[in-house]
């Protein structure tokens, strides 16, 4: 193999270096980088040299935990050094100039990793991280480990909230236009984001009573002035087959879900948001809701339940990387319970959705209730499994 032609790249590297030197701050910058390294004992570093062709050594073994590396670029062009887990970068140090050293610290968990060594065509090296006592002493996940999952859930809540408001607005618009058929078609899609968020939303009792009351709980049932929200619209669209009187109800729904969106946004993040809310909604489903049904007029309960499951699954999905290392059995139990309810719901699917809930017999409902009870039981173990260690 021939040496890489020192054409463009070197000219630019040299030009780059010259420009950096002109900018006085740059030299200081590199110096300060180097200083950061020298504060620690030399023995604390794993030394790696990147040559024109490979890393030396090309295979590293280190114990799990926070580990520091010192990388010397002995090739004639700027290089980067990366630790890769599959295609994902665990940690990297970029733009190490020829002849320069750079240091890098990574928190490593046991496993096999690859390291990159200069040119993309150069063979990669390996990094083996072995289990260590130090990494195992922490009993529960750290608060830090929960930042990612909580943020991810917060994003989900924000996106579903936006969808909930947009859905209500579209439904209100169809009602305003006097288009019954369109409004009927928009009812379920408008409601699903609310059901995905229900595990958090139900805590706001005032809003829940305005957004999601069922007629059975109201003195005058459908004729009650407090009969508002989704089910009031459902009643008009599917029972009375009329848009009469629905426009103000729909406008109120838009206002209420917008308030809900704002409240969800300002909810203080807590681990309970992830560990407790799923179990609560699974319990509610298991204790009565599945048996009785809620959508008395449209019979779209299975869509609702499937959306509840999506909401629950989001919390367990984001928690998985934290849960699995600390409580693998709980993770497996939740997985199995989720698979069970999903399988039972899938069995009730038709080509374009779910069967009408009035066609779901008592025995099937009872079985589904039991499966949600098992899911609730599995989810209740989350709070204890995710004990935050200080």
């Amino acid at each position, binding site marked *: *193999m021939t040496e*890489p*032609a020192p*054409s*463009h*790249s070197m000219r*630019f*590297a040299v*030009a*780059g270096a010259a*420009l*950096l030197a*002109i*900018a*006085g*701050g*740059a030299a*200081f*910058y590199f110096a*300060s980088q180097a200083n950061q390294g020298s504060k620690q004992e030399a023995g604390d570093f794993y030394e790696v040299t990147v040559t024109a062709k490979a890393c030396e050594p090309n295979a590293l073994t280190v114990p799990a935990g926070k580990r520091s590396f010192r990388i010397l670029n002995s090739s004639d*062009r*700027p290089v980067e050094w*990366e630790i*890769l887990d599959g*295609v*994902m*970068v665990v940690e*990297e140090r*970029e*733009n190490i*100039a020829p002849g320069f050293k750079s240091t890098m610290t990574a928190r490593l968990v046991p496993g096999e990793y690859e390291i*990159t060594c200069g*040119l*993309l*065509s150069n063979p990669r090296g390996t990094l083996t991280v072995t289990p260590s006592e130090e990494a195992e002493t922490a009993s529960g996940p750290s*608060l*830090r480990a*929960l*930042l*990612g*999952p909580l*943020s*991810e859930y*917060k*994003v989900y809540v*924000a*996106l579903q909230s936006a969808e909930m408001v947009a859905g209500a607005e579209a439904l209100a618009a169809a009602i305003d236009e006097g288009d019954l058929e369109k409004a009927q078609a928009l009812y379920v899609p408008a409601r699903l984001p609310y059901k995905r968020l229900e595990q958090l939303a139900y805590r706001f009792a005032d809003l829940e009573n305005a957004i999601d009351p069922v007629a059975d709980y109201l003195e005058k049932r459908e004729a009650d002035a407090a009969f508002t929200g989704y089910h009031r619209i459902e009643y008009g669209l599917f029972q009375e087959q009329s848009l009469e009187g629905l426009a103000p109800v729909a406008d109120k729904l838009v206002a209420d879900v917008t308030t809900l969106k704002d409240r969800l946004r300002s909810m*203080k*993040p*807590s*681990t*309970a948001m992830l*560990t407790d809310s799923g179990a609560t909604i699974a319990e509610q489903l298991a204790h009565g809701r599945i048996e009785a049904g809620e959508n008395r007029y449209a019979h779209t309960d299975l869509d609702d339940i499937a959306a509840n499951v999506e909401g629950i699954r989001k919390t367990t999905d*984001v928690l998985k*990387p934290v849960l699995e290392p600390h409580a693998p059995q709980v993770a497996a139990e939740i997985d199995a319970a989720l698979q069970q309810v999903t399988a039972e719901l899938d069995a009730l699917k038709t080509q374009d959705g779910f069967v009408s809930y009035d066609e779901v017999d008592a025995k099937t409902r009872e079985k589904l209730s039991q499966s949600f009870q098992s899911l609730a039981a599995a989810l209740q173990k989350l*709070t204890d499994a*995710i*004990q*935050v260690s*200080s």
Partner: protein
Amino acid sequence: MHAWKALSVAALAFAIGVGSANAKQEDITLELVEPLADYKIYVAENTKQLVKDTTAFVAAIKDGDVEKAKSLFGPTRTSYEKIEPIAELFSDLDVSIDARADDYEKAEQDPDFTGFHKIEYVLWEKDTTDGLDEIADKLLADVTDLDKRINDLTFPPEKVVGGAAVLMEEVAATKISGEEDRYSHTDLWDFDANFAGSKKIFILVKPLIVEDDPEFVAKVEENFGDVDETLAKYKTDDGFVSYEELTDEDRTVLSARVNTLAEDLSTLRGKLGLD
């Protein structure tokens, strides 16, 4: 002890920490959740835009419209450059989307050289779109894949907070020289996006540090302000002038500011307990 108890203790520790001069730097706080979530939404909006803009860019290439493709090159890249700290976590895509010729043994002639800079090379150095169809299709497939992967990714908090400095370090080390967009000289588009991406992270975490460290915040803001002012001189109706028109004086200003920003912002992780 129940988890919520541990959390309320942590929350209390935070409440005490704020405003006191000797707050422990390693305190981790759930207050970070909000900025992290907002940052993910920012990144997701940018990758969505990237897919949209790349679709138009690729269409221009496949239409053989060299001038249009050239005019779309700079703006299309901006949504990638804003979110580079996250985008480059996917090493395979970072290579296929944004690698430079220097990363390859045979430089521009290397058959593996793909992505934005390969297209840039052919558009400007060869003044043609000939032979770019496949590379353009691959670019669109790659940014679409990136959009999906980013949506599925739980962002590592230290990468988000560290990203503010990473962007500035990259500008300082390998961009201020003009080597990134060496064929098109659209570097000012990239810079502007890199600064915007870095500033976004800073602004999002600012509420968590401003009480403890008002001087630090003021200094960083002043440096970002200087950068904005300098770049504003080179703005045109639809973007930026060629990087070759940047005066030596302004290059020195940018270079100095970017180095200070890189250095200052590199302390953000520590300030937020994420080292």
